[in-house]
């Protein structure tokens, strides 16, 4: 019984470990970058080893001279890794010197030498031309190929020799193929690099636009809140004289002044809001999740009073949400309440989008100096669909928090879940203006 269990568990582990097709790519290594160089050097060594006896024994050249020419061919290949054009000259010179030298000692009915290009010479020159065409401009490659062809023609076709196996045509065909291949690869690589550059440019552009949109939405909301308060002030200033019997003239004048100022402020606010709206006429009043989180366009800017309704709506959308509050709840400045509400709203909508099947927990902590908002979610049950959004969520939260001089953390949890935590000071940025040591984005809340 126990033994059977053990075997089953062992088999299970074995199956888990070995019966799998998990991708496990090789980690990128700096050594790997030198692989092409290694291959070229190895080939160069082969060219040297093969070319030397051919020139010395079959070609009838002296050992020292053959060594020099072989070293030139082999050196040209290695040099082509760094300086392809001089390497091409070197390879051409080695071929020419070799061909002329072999021709001089060539005898009728002797050994039929591969001429003017030796096999080793062709291989070496193929490498040089490929490396050249991969990097140099198309015109340079074409010029190098043309001169190679011309030289071959002059040596074999015009000058000629007595007894040889002609290699000119084969060599020229192979060279042309290699140069075309190199040109094509180079063209493709450049096109791709250009595309990558453009893509990164548009991505940057999009990120910047997203940020600006987010900022102006936040600005719109806050101006909205301010304007609302201003209009209440203007009403109250008007009402106040009616609340006392025979108000003194000074009081009436003073209140009229307050009302006048509020009206002027409202005029300015309308202007600012007009600008903010015309910048993004399509931007919705509430974030894109309005349908699931219950902020109709006709509703006032939300405060934490509306949090229960938000959570209720999120539950209706199929997410298990629990809420906890620590500390003593108290009314906070409207900007803080609005931001806290929006952060919870964004975080919950992120959970809905990116962690299907997870459950979420919202924790508000009222601290003497501000409010801490935490939204946790458990590990998603299913893999989330690929993200489509332009990243408004976390970006918007960050902007809101930075504006209030608070700080935001967002990170995965060890159990596979995710946590978004924000601290919003209740006295706003003015506080830290007096105290430069205390700044946003510092480690943790007290």
């Amino acid at each position, binding site marked *: 019984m126990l033994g059977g269990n053990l075997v089953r568990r062992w088999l299970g582990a074995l199956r888990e470990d070995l019966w799998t097709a998990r991708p496990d790519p090789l980690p990128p290594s700096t050594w790997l970058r030198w692989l092409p160089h290694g291959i070229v050097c190895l080939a160069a060594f082969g060219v040297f080893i093969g070319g030397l006896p051919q020139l010395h024994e079959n070609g009838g050249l002296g050992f020292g001279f053959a060594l020099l020419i072989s070293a030139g061919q082999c050196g040209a290949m290695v040099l082509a890794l760094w300086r392809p054009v001089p390497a091409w000259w070197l390879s051409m010179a080695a071929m020419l010197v070799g061909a002329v030298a072999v021709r001089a000692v060539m005898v009728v009915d002797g050994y039929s030498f591969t001429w003017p290009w030796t096999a080793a010479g062709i291989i070496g020159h193929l490498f040089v031309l490929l490396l050249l065409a991969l990097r140099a401009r198309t015109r340079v490659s074409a010029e190098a190929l043309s001169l190679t062809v011309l030289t071959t023609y002059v040596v074999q076709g015009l000058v000629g020799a007595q007894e040889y196996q002609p290699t000119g045509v084969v060599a020229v065909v192979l060279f042309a193929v290699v140069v075309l291949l190199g040109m094509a690869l180079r063209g493709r690589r450049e096109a791709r690099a250009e595309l990558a550059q453009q893509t990164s440019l548009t991505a940057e552009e999009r990120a910047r636009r997203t940020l600006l949109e987010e900022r102006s939405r936040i600005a719109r909301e806050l101006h909205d809140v301010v304007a609302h308060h201003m*209009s209440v002030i*203007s009403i109250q200033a*008007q009402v106040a004289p009616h*609340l006392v019997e025979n108000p003194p003239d000074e009081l009436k004048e003073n209140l009229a002044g307050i009302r006048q100022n509020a009206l002027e402020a409202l005029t300015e606010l309308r202007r600012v809001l007009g600008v903010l709206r015309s910048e993004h006429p399509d931007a919705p009043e509430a974030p894109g999740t309005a349908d699931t989180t219950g902020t*109709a*366009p006709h509703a*006032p800017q939300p405060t934490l009073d509306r949090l229960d309704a938000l959570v209720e709506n999120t539950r209706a959308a199929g997410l298990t949400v629990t809420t906890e509050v620590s500390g003593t709840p108290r009314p906070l400045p409207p900007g803080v309440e609005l931001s806290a509400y929006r952060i919870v709203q964004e975080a919950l909508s992120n959970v809905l989008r990116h962690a299907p099947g997870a459950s979420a927990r919202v924790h508000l902590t009222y601290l003497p100096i501000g409010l801490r908002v935490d939204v946790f979610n458990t590990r998603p049950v299913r893999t989330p669909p690929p993200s489509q959004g332009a990243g408004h969520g976390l970006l918007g939260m960050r902007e809101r928090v930075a504006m209030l001089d608070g700080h935001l953390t967002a990170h995965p949890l060890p159990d596979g879940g995710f946590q978004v935590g924000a601290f919003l000071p209740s006295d706003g940025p003015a506080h830290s203006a007096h105290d430069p040591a205390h700044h946003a984005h510092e480690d943790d809340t007290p």
Partner: protein
Amino acid sequence: MTSGPIRVLIADDQQMVRQGFTVLLNTQPDIEVIGQAVDGLDAVARVAELTPDVVLMDIRMPELGGIEATRRITGAMPDIRVLVLTTFDLDEYVYEALRAGASGFLLKDASADQLAEAVRVVAAGDALLAPGITRRLIAEFSRLDDRPRAPLKERVGGLTERETEVLALIAQGLSNAEIAQRLFVAEQTVKTHVGRILVKLGLRDRTQAAVFAYESGLVRPSGY
């Protein structure tokens, strides 16, 4: 028109605003605030219970927004006039509220005199409130509005030539007296025409008539 003071209900989610308007309107001898509502649903319920003459309705309220509340109230009780309050902006929501049946709109920071005057005008119903601004608002947003509409041509065709002329003048924001002057007829005659137009087109007041005139294309938003 009405005997006794104009009975007003105030619907706004902010207590300061409700109290403020109550105090300001109650200083007027011919206006009496008979109740307050804290959101759209509450407003619909209190209107059914108290049947005020005029409802001051905030557009942005929790639970049920002012536009939907306006639609429900004017749909159920055509005699009740709704005056929409907007915090600080004349936008498409205000136009939406007019389409939903509101008789006019007012900025919340309006002075006490403007407020009282607006209530009187809306209750009497023989002139457009803030004619210039209303006309511009309707003109601007009716142009942007591309929702499908009922076949309007025949309905305009149901009007006599004179009535069509009067409708166009209403849409330009003219009062009965001004229309009478323009057409060289007695004000009473104009009143009769206006009454016929509203009955024939199934509209509740001049504001709706103005919206209709723009939306049916009878009046073109010109010079705007």
